């Protein structure tokens, strides 16, 4: 799926990187990596050589990270630095700490985006609106040399409060992921981590990566909308296509669409 008039990207997971047979030439960027779960960074590190086969620019997605994820990010970034040119790479950070690691490996010029999880610190969204939380938040992002924020899509043409920034020189653009909307994530997850007893302590989240075998649609009597449990996160599917036009994208400073066929 591709939108006219804006830059298009596609997000693929590790298993699709290995088996994907579609033509990706319509997509400027290939988004891959573990957007929300640090345990899955290991899986991407294992298959990272596959990225040599893609000519698309790469945006590597990273999750919130503990010390373990910091080490994995370091290794992945090193590989990207050694195998791709800086201008062919973007890094998406969902943890402030990852920014330090990326700058250390690539230097100051690497493009870093705030991912869908941490963007909630800067912008609040719902089905019909997007609001910047404060001018100072965006100043903070710009001071870190970050201008691009990743968000999920909307049901309609969203309202916004960006007029308040007319007099202020803050820079921000959006990449919009569709059709799935990320609601929340946990480090210990619905799908994978075994139950723990009051006497148990852990070094890392014990994970046998069972989540890679499937995603799960949860219907329940509290919501009229089905929820989707995938990896360590919960999503809803946005079935509206009203938002998916370049004019609407432009109205909220979105200039890149990231199609996520597999969540």
């Amino acid at each position, binding site marked *: 799926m591709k939108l006219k008039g804006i830059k298009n990207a596609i997000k693929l997971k590790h298993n699709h990187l290995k088996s994907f047979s579609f033509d990706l030439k319509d997509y400027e960027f290939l988004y891959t990596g573990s957007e929300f779960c640090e345990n899955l960074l290991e899986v991407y590190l294992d298959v990272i050589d596959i990225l040599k086969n893609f000519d698309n620019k790469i945006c590597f997605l990273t999750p919130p990270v*503990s*010390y*373990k994820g*910091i080490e994995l990010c370091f290794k992945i970034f090193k590989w990207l630095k050694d195998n791709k040119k800086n201008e062919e790479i973007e890094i998406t950070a969902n*943890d*402030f*700490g*990852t*920014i*330090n690691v990326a700058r250390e490996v690539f230097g100051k010029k690497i493009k870093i985006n705030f991912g869908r999880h941490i963007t*909630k*610190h800067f912008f609040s969204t*719902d089905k019909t609106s997007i609001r910047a*939380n*404060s*001018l*100072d*938040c*965006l*100043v*903070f992002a710009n001071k870190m040399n970050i201008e691009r924020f990743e968000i999920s899509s909307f049901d309609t043409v969203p309202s916004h409060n960006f007029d*308040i920034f007319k007099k202020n020189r803050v820079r921000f653009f959006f990449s919009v992921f569709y059709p799935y*909307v990320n*609601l*929340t*994530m*946990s*480090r*210990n*997850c*619905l*799908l*994978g981590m*075994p139950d723990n007893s*009051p*006497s148990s*302590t*852990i*070094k*890392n*989240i014990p994970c046998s990566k*069972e989540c890679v*075998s*499937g995603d*799960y*649609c*949860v219907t*329940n*009597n*509290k*919501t*009229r*909308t089905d*929820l989707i*449990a*995938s990896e*360590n996160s*919960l999503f809803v599917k946005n079935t509206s296509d009203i938002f998916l036009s370049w004019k609407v994208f432009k109205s909220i400073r979105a200039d890149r669409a990231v199609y996520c066929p*597999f*969540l």
Partner: protein
Amino acid sequence: MKLLSCITSLNEIIPIKKAGADEVYFAYEKVYNYGNSKSLKNLSEVKKAVNISHKAGMKAFLAANDIMFDTQNHKAIKEIKSIVSMGIDGIIVSSVGLLLKLKKLNIKVPIHLSSLNPVFNIETARIFSKFNISRIILPNQISAYESKDIINFCREKKIETEVFYFRYFGCPYINGYCYLHGDRYFDLTSEEACLCKIDERRNNVNVKVLNYGNNNSIVAKVRKRVRERFSKGGPPRIMTAAEFFDFYRLGVTHVKYGTRTDDTRTKIINVYNIKKAIDYMMNVSSMCDYDEAKKRFVKYAIGNSGVIK
């Protein structure tokens, strides 16, 4: 280990002190705070809260910990300035915008970095240590072992560290960035319905498999697990009695009781129980080796009935 408790009215301060709290914090309704629930109503109450706490020998802190803190709301910033001039001992902050604003305005007050802006690694601690942070409140979605470097870093930088007591706060999701509260993206079946505290019956939850992988036995197992967990309140918690003990042994300086929505009696009982648990933990740690002390503490903490004798 010192004990910090929330208060939501002036008449809670002294009983909570007597129950064992060393410090208190409160929210004030004109300063954005997480959940915007149960706050002091006016500056006169805030001033009294600070004074009563100080007279009782306790520090008092203000929760200004809404991620969405609108720093262009001059009234809210003015209120913070007034509260600082009243002698508040620190402000609990999560928004990077507010951190920057306080720095720009040269408002000199110790800052506790809220767990709503979670520090999961030492690099994040490094970034925020540049903002006059006097304490980092660790999120309860990280284990003691995973926090080791952060705690050591904080010790070196003379930054205090704080954790939640495992029994009274247990959100498994990264709660500062969680959209399960309310109905931003999904329609709830009733106004009371809440996905945050699911408490469902299993037969009210159905789980279908999407995007099949190639291992059917794992898929069936996980499907069952998702149904079970979704019915019972979400993913498993990391913070256990044993983790709490490890945080203590690693040198975490403070523990927080922060359920502002609890009634006064519950707050007092819970503070009392946490204080007793800390005393017990310190006591067994001085008498036994690490493994034995931990075992005894877990037994004590789980067996505690929660009733003041």
